[in-house]
């Protein structure tokens, strides 16, 4: 068929752009890569240095402090179960990847959410980017991530950050915007500065919603571990991926179940941390 216009070389533009970034900022990416790799591997080494039973108890105690005794007991039994199956080290690798990417997502996401809630223009710019980040198939991030950061855990972290950040930003914006208008008027009427309004009223009241966003980010990040393993990120995801490629149904279920256990623990702890707060409730 004779086309009216030649095919748009959009893919070429992207490739050229990526090449340009790699050649221009190669050293920056290398530095970033080294830092992320060091963080994740350091965390794994630290956790692996502690005997598994001690670490499991430690996690259970943290769960108890942040939420309820029931969740603490589940944490202890669940982690010991994973250890007994022999996936302890893989679990630690996955945990380090998830925690690192979630922490980065929060460090970037919460301030962006706050900014978006204060500046309508910022929100107009941020929102479509978030839509793009969430709907673009996750595999697509992996390709440039490999160019920038080689294979291994780092592109996995980067892809997880991109994929898991949107809920935190969105729910931070939503939580702050949902603070009733008359409370905002009250803070203004008493002569608060913008920061006083944010820190003393809006953010504390938005906390449950922001925590729901954090919880969602953790879940999305966990869902990325199998995909991240395709570019060489180690951990439970890698075990699942191997089981799938080798058609080992039993191992697939073992490792899959382990991921589910970690997911439940992290989910319940963060959910409760969001609800647990001073006597007053937002009606």
């Amino acid at each position, binding site marked *: 068929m004779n086309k009216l216009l030649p095919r748009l070389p959009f893919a070429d533009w992207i490739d050229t752009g990526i090449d340009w970034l790699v050649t221009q900022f190669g050293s920056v990416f290398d530095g970033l890569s080294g830092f992320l790799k060091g963080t994740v591997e350091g965390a794994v080494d630290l956790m692996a240095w502690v005997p598994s039973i001690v670490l499991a108890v430690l996690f259970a105690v943290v769960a108890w402090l942040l939420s309820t005794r029931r969740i603490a007991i589940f944490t202890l039994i669940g982690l010991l179960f994973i250890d007994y199956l022999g996936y302890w080290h893989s679990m630690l690798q996955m945990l380090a990847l998830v925690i690192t990417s979630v922490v980065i997502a929060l460090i970037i996401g919460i301030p962006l959410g706050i900014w978006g809630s204060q500046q309508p223009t910022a929100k107009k710019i941020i929102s479509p980017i978030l839509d793009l980040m969430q709907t673009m198939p996750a595999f697509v991030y992996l390709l440039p991530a490999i160019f920038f950061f080689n294979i291994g855990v780092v592109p996995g972290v980067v892809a997880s950050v991109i994929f898991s950040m949107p809920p935190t930003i969105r729910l931070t914006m939503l939580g702050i915007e949902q603070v009733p208008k*008359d409370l905002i*008027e009250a803070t*203004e*009427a*008493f*002569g608060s500065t913008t920061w006083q309004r944010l820190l*003393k009223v809006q953010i504390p009241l938005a906390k449950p919603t922001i925590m729901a966003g954090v919880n969602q980010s953790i879940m999305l990040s966990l869902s990325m571990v199998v995909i991240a393993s395709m570019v060489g990120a180690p951990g439970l995801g890698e075990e699942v991926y191997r089981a799938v490629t080798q058609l080992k149904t039993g191992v697939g279920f073992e490792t899959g179940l382990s991921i589910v256990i970690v997911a439940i623990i992290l989910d319940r702890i963060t959910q409760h941390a969001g609800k647990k707060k001073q*006597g007053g*409730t937002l009606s």
Partner: protein
Amino acid sequence: MEELEVKKKIEVRNVSKIFGKNSKRASQLLNEGKSKAEILKQTGTTVGVKNASFDVYDGEIFVIMGLSGSGKSTLVRMFNRLIEPTAGEIRIDGDDIVRMNKEQLRNVRRKKIGMVFQNFALFPHKTILENTEYGLEIQGTAKAERQERAKESLRLVGLAGYEDQYPNQLSGGMQQRVGLARALANDPDILLMDEAFSALDPLIRKDMQDELLQLHHDMGKTIIFITHDLDEALRIGDRIALMKDGDIVQIGTPEEILMSPSNEYVEKFVEDVDLSKVLTAGHIMKKADTVQVDRGPRVALRLMKQLRISSIYVVDKGNRLLGAVTAQDTVAASESGASLEEVLIKDVPTTSSDTVLTELFDTVSTTTIPMAVVDERNHLEGIIIRGAMIGALAGDGQFINDSRTIEEAKPVELEVASNE
């Protein structure tokens, strides 16, 4: 009027608020005298407040009243610029708040103006004490001092002991007390109260009105009170501004609004008012004709004949009320040579001048002698005659005393009295 001598606290000059994009064009149309509906049609903007100009005097309760959509909430929010005026000046103690920069505005909000909101607007995550402290906290007041002042403020509104509770543990009335305490803690000169009692049920609302009047009496703040409830406005307002469609239709004392409505809208608005709850004995009392006790029955009789009345009040030399005598008894006394004191009826109905008429109906309807209005030292201030009471309730202005000058009783009323 006496208020004119009082210092102006707030001067509002040609203040307008237009909501929407094309506000310049809309202001032009506004200056040409177009109506709210016409401007909406031509420019798509909504006029909130139209060229409002008035003064609020130091220490008065100034009520802004109107139905929803009349612009009253918009107007009050321009006093502390929660809503930016489109045009005009608002001078507080001579300083135009509209031209202030952020820093100056923040200072005025922190020191001069307190605000109480319709739905209380308490911070649900803070305790009652922390809520009350808020205004001081953001000014950077030391913790010990601000807690002290917040506690004092809570004590003023009768909430001592509730410091550590959270707002959702308190009833609506109590929550609004916290709202009031929070506004008072900064010790502002001006209190803005936006429908502050409208969300409360009627009994509690009345209590809160009484307490506000008491607080106002004790602290002497200038209060700007927004309400849609005419009874509330009449009850607490020193002066009332009535708004309609962004216009201020009339400003005046409650009596002026009731007795001489400036146009049909006001008239319609006030026609259902129960005057008996607004007018007091002082409004309808007439100058009493009295006889001093040592004058004797003959003098009393002559006075009664002259005035064509059937009874007369007896006072001592200091105009203190002793009682009353009837014509019949006085005739008997003068024949038997007895003194006035011997035929004196001491058990006469009395009331104070600030009692509202509803509370007087019962006595006035049964008594044979006109009711006496006395002050706290039993000085006779005037009398209440049934005819004048009915006339006043019918809305006839001639039966109502302006600024408390008591007129001579008129013959027509005397006739009513003498027929009793």
